[in-house]
């Protein structure tokens, strides 16, 4: 006797019957459906409805994933929050060149946006500026 696992044994009869269903002629299927009181048109609508539902669910899942990715990006963008007192502290350090590299010491020629970006970068990099006042 072949060694077969329990799931295969449970599906063995289904396998034979499915093969029979696949081999049935159209007239045999229609005769059985008529006998069972099932409309082929209604069956078709149900099957197409299930396909449509699968497509809709997939679109929703993709949209959800896209929204989650956007939210994730937003959260990452908000990691550095600049407080007014911090801006002033870092700005003074940049403009005076206190303990900073040459590149950072060019703060006096920077636009306000460039200066803020530099402060964000410094905070992100963990460069701390002592408040001497």
């Amino acid at each position, binding site marked *: 006797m072949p060694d077969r696992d329990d799931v295969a044994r449970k599906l063995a009869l*289904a396998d*034979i019957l*499915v093969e029979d*269903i696949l081999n049935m002629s159209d007239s045999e299927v229609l005769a059985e459906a008529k006998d069972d009181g099932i409309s*082929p048109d209604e069956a*078709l609508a*149900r099957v197409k409805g299930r396909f449509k539902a699968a497509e809709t669910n997939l679109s929703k899942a993709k949209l959800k994933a896209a929204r989650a990715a956007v939210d994730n990006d937003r959260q990452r963008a908000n990691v550095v929050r600049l407080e007014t007192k911090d801006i002033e502290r870092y700005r003074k350090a940049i403009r005076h060149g206190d303990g900073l590299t040459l590149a950072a010491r060019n703060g006096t020629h920077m636009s306000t946006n460039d200066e803020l970006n530099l402060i964000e970068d410094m905070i992100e990099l963990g460069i701390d500026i002592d408040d001497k006042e």
Partner: protein
Amino acid sequence: MTKAIPKDVRDLDEVRERIDGLTGVEALKLEQIARRFVASCDAPDLLQEAFSRILEGGRNWPSDIEFLPFMAQVMRSIASTERRKTDSRPELRVVPHHGEQLTFDTVADPNGTPEDIVGEWDELAAARELFAGDDTATTYIDAIVAGFRRQEIMELCDLDANGYETVTRRIKRRLEKRSLKDVHNA
């Protein structure tokens, strides 16, 4: 990175075209096939899950296989996987201790999840029950479950080719009628 689709499979546009062109007879067959793999109440969900796997790219439609046999393979695979999962999963649920809402016990779960229903549903038991007084049908069923081949079953049941087809069709019809009755009673 998107998954590359092998050249010998059909793309999703071809799947959609095939679904668009589906006939009523093919839809009847798909519904019947689903009812052979899971309980009738779960059959529509099995069909939808098969569509989902195909749309997600989990299952590709090979160029050399007709659509209905392919769908039958996908549905069988899902039913088989779910049964294996439920067979190996301990049926536990969390319940509060008496008079205490913060601590819980785990006990055997008497109520099945949808996956449990797939696992608990047993067409073999249903078939044996339906054909309890029919020696030929019960021998045929037991022989199939035991893995006997068609010729062996014919010899065992003393059937010729026509007789074998007749018994197969008889079992299929009785099970289908029972499934449809379950749908109406649900």
